[in-house]
């Protein structure tokens, strides 16, 4: 018997909605946080390399049972599905399974490798063609969720996964795979390539996020972290530069005064024009409103900014596309500029150990104020009081009934309750482990945001983040690259052409670029396209969407605040948490800390020797 099942909970939070959980817990609500997974934060999670490999294997659907015997008088049952929002998973390993073998054997092995890759890739193509088919299947299966005999995820993912399974299994001792270095290191024989075995061995050094985002330094997430004092649970690193891919080259985008001054790509006149434009567009002006509704590119052209500057301003600073309306482009540019210079020379921060740290911080905050967490523990259904149309209780995966006053869950658990079914939109994601940086030095200190305009007509604009080992997300000597765009086709089809041109893979012939050691493609449902309203659900059941495709966290934070105010309309959203020493414990006195310490004259000093690249959000 579980200790929590007897109590009545004010709020049961299901899965990753950690911000709301923390906010509720902070203002005194009793929060129970259940997650069917063995890790926090669902699609917001980050994994070690080995953790990610098991995650890849786990992308399957769990079974459903009938729980009607737990119903009480006047109650109704809502079954909860737990359909995955991940599709088209594909894995490629471009490095040898074991440590580098003797040069002599490389040739013979190489042919084997190519043979290996052949069938794998053809099957990938088959997999991605199925995307449209999948979407229709999704709806079909949702309508019959009571009989989830064959969830479409298992239908779809398994074949592709199996084709790649040999690779993940390859490192296991019993697998009889030939040793196969993917790319014989002809260009740099001296440089020892990192093997798959090494990646696995150092797997704990990786913190690979499922989402690809950055924190705008004046964005709502940063403001919330500061306001709530949750920032004390994490450390952050400045994104050190903005890069862009243009005319087949990776270039640095000058976006601060110092960048513009030092830029070698811009003439002095361009420098002046850029600075003038950036200063002038901070304020809203009449001549700007004349362009409302017309493309931002047209506005930029009319400002007599040359092609260099247009590219930088459109794709890298506003991060919009050619047909984005001027008012949107300007708002985006202003947001970029507003965030610039608060912590560093770019508008972005990245949490050390990955974005997965952020939900964990809020979980911690929730727990500090009494929230209870249960991992590997799912909900099966909601119990509905038919008279009041309110959810009275939930039934967990162990068949226990838990009373509650509010329930918060992720959209795809109740997808079938939606009144108007809108087709889901997807994000195309790729995660690469590479051996060097795309631009300049391999100092392992740079964190780069790379904006990539559509490489061909109709292709999506891609946002890429290159993390060095200094962010604690990858092992030393490697770079972790996240690619993200709105899906046009499958992740592989959307992103692999770009990856083969920008990086060195067995398909590309240019050896001067960073080599891809390992690569993962998948599609994730776009949270911004999920509708959290319009579900046929009790009034005290709240729905929130998964991660969206934007670079910042505005969508998630706005949604969390909205839900919080629906649950507790009178309460403050995440007020500052008090310092531990200011908390009064039972009896009104602070816990005795033994004999009184000899106060020293040493004043508290911030360490001058600490890493100055690390930003503490203590302000």
């Amino acid at each position: 018997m579980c200790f929590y099942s007897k109590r009545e909970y004010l709020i049961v939070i299901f899965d990753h909605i950690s911000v709301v959980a923390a906010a509720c817990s902070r203002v005194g609500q009793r929060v129970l946080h259940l997650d069917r997974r063995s890790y926090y934060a669902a699609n917001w999670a980050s994994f070690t390399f080995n953790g990610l490999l098991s995650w890849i294997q786990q992308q399957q659907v769990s079974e459903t049972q009938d729980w009607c015997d737990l119903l009480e008088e006047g109650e109704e049952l809502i079954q909860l599905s737990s359909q995955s929002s991940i599709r088209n998973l594909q894995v490629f390993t471009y490095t040898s399974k074991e440590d580098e073998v003797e040069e002599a054997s490389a040739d013979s092995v190489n042919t084997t490798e190519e043979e290996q890759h052949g069938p794998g890739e053809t099957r990938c193509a088959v997999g991605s063609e199925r995307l449209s088919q999948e979407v229709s299947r999704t709806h079909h299966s949702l309508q019959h969720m009571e009989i989830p005999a064959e969830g479409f995820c298992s239908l779809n993912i398994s074949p592709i996964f199996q084709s790649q399974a040999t690779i993940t299994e390859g490192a296991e001792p019993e697998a009889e795979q030939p040793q196969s270095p993917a790319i014989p290191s002809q260009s740099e024989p001296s440089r020892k390539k990192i093997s798959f075995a090494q990646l696995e061995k150092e797997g704990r050094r990786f913190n690979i996020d499922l989402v690809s985002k950055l924190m705008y330094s004046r964005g709502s997430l940063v403001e919330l972290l500061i306001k709530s004092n949750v920032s004390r649970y994490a450390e952050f690193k400045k994104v050190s530069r903005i890069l862009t891919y243009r005319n087949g080259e990776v270039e640095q985008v000058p976006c601060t005064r110092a960048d513009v001054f030092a830029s070698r790509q811009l003439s002095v006149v361009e420098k002046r024009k850029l600075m003038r434009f950036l200063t002038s567009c901070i304020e809203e002006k009449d001549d700007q409103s004349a362009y409302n509704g017309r493309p931002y590119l047209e506005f930029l052209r009319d400002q007599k900014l040359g092609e260099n500057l247009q590219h930088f301003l459109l794709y890298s600073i506003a991060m919009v596309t050619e047909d984005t309306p001027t008012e949107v482009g300007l708002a985006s540019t202003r947001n970029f500029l507003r965030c610039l210079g608060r912590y560093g020379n770019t508008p972005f921060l990245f949490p050390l150990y990955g974005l997965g740290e952020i939900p964990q911080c809020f979980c911690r905050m929730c727990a500090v104020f009494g929230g209870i967490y249960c991992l590997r523990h799912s909900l099966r259904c909601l119990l509905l009081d038919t008279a009041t149309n309110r959810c009275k209780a939930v039934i967990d995966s162990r068949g226990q009934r838990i009373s509650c006053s509010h329930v918060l869950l992720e959209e795809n658990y109740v997808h079938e309750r939606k009144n108007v079914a809108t087709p889901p939109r997807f994000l195309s994601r790729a995660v690469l482990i590479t051996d060097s940086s795309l631009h300049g030095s391999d100092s392992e200190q740079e964190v780069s945001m790379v904006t990539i305009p559509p490489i061909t007509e109709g292709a999506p604009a891609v946002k890429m983040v290159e993390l060095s080992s200094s962010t604690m997300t990858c092992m030393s000597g490697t770079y972790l690259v996240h690619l993200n765009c709105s899906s046009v086709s499958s992740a592989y089809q959307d992103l692999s052409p770009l990856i083969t041109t920008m990086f060195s893979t067995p398909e590309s012939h240019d050896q001067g670029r960073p080599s891809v050691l390992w690569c993962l493609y998948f599609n994730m449902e776009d949270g911004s396209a999920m509708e959290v309203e319009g579900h046929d659900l009790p009034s005290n059941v709240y729905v929130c969407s998964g991660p969206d495709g934007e670079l910042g966290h505005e969508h998630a934070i706005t949604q969390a605040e909205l839900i919080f105010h629906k649950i507790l309309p009178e309460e403050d959203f995440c007020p500052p948490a008090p310092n531990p020493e200011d908390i009064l414990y039972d009896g009104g006195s602070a816990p005795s800390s033994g004999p009184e310490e000899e106060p020293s004259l040493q004043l508290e000093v911030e360490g001058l020797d600490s890493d100055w690249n690390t930003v503490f959000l203590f302000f």
Partner: protein
Amino acid sequence: MHGRVKVKSTAQQEEEKRKEREKKLKIYIAARDGCFTKRKEGVFDDEALQLTQQLLSSNPDFATLWNYRREILMHLETVKEVDEVQKIYEAELLFLESCLKVNPKSYGSWHHRSWVSARLPRPDWARELSLCDRCLSLDDRNFHCWDYRRMVVKMFNVPVDQELKFTDRLIGSNFSNYSSWHYRSTLLPLLHTTASELPPMQAESPKSNRVCEEQLLKEYELVQNAFFTDPNDQSAWFYYRWLLGRAELEEMISCLHVSREEEQVAVVFSRPVNVQSGCLLLVLDGQPHAVEWKSIHPRFKHSPVWICNLPPGTISEISNEHNLTVHWTEKHSRKDCTLFTGHAESWCQDSATDQELFRSELSVEKNSVLQSELQSVQQLQELEPLNKWCLLTLILLMRALDPLSYEKEMLAHFQTLKEVDSMRSAYYSDLCSKFMIENTILKMEYAEVRVFSVSDKNLSTLCHLDQLVLVTHINLSCNQLLCLPPQFAMLRCLEVLEADNNSIGNLEGLYHLPKLEAVILKDNKIATLADLEPLTSCPRLKRLDLRGNPVTQLANVESELAKLLPSVLDLLL
């Protein structure tokens, strides 16, 4: 509400903080008194070292304690082995780092650090340099750190090119930094003027702080990047002025004038000097003469013009020819001039044109460089038509290239400057006056006349009067002059002064002008008889026009004036 965390109220927190503070204060005072007692008793032990360390780490601005600490350390030096001393001082440096974290701008800590560094048996200058770098990366304008760094660089003998790269780095991270630019200006001459590249004479000249042209072009590029990126940042503009600047003028005698009738010699120097007896030697017809040199006005101890009266009868005979030489012994400069038979005066003068005196302190070896600089600044001015730094630099470049042909554009730019920077409009008026006077001097020299005429040019001030020693007629009418300053007494040959339609209320400069005959001051602001007092020192004054001045309204003005200036025959009131 149920289940909420109870938090201490602000009053509770305040109370706790107050108690904490009181406790700290008690300890602090006890430690301080302990230190003072020990010092009085002449105790130099480890305990004292620790006590001062405790106090200084919370208050690094306690100079007495630093002194006591130095006394202790100096004592320890005498009783300990070198290796131990090294260790003590190394610990001292570590302690100082913690003090600098408390207050990175503490005079005491920085001073003590340089004291310790200098006494360290085996100093690690590389470490000190990196400490400075770190401090400057936190605050690139911390002048304490700049000072300390200069000392470190000197002790460590850091090569100039390495230091130049250091400024590159600082300027790259933030170019609004005078310290870095200025440091650059001290490094460049050291780096690029190797004696072999220059003709020997130039190399010897200590004032020549020229930078080789190749480097100069790089510097222009760098500084242009800065002012194109942010034209409102003045640090780059100041550095640019320095780059375009010229070496200082050589000190010499630029003009010698001798007047037979007054038996007076006037010497003009290239800059104001204080002539002490003996440093200026007058030789007349081969014979040294002991004379008394006077500056042109008692107000000046330093003056570019000095005069002396020869003993009566020395050169008064018109049929005699005289050779006159003045030696400036200090600077090895001399001027000769011959007073020919039948001539009333004679002079020898270097021309302002030849010396390019008025190229507004800008000069570069090659006009082509200036020309291309002018083009870039003009380009910037098209983008930023109202930027004052850009306009001002444009004016200076134009003057350096060709002061006369750019006159019209210069005046237009001055007009814009006064509008966009109205707080400094008086400064611009004075500067514009200066440039107009320079142009007039050039025109006068080209015309080879002794008439100086700048009427209706909005002059607000007079300058370069040392260049007008030989002028006989001056026309300053229809300007905005407020006075004739003491420098006006440099116009040794002036006969006619036209200064009508100004706002002159002060005639201080009309002082002992031996040839002055006519003074036209119609429509000015002369209010009292006392204002006219200086005119009594001009022996030849015959004509005076005071129409339209307040002084004319005084009762009995005519008789009073006749009393004051009996020599004036033609008085207009």
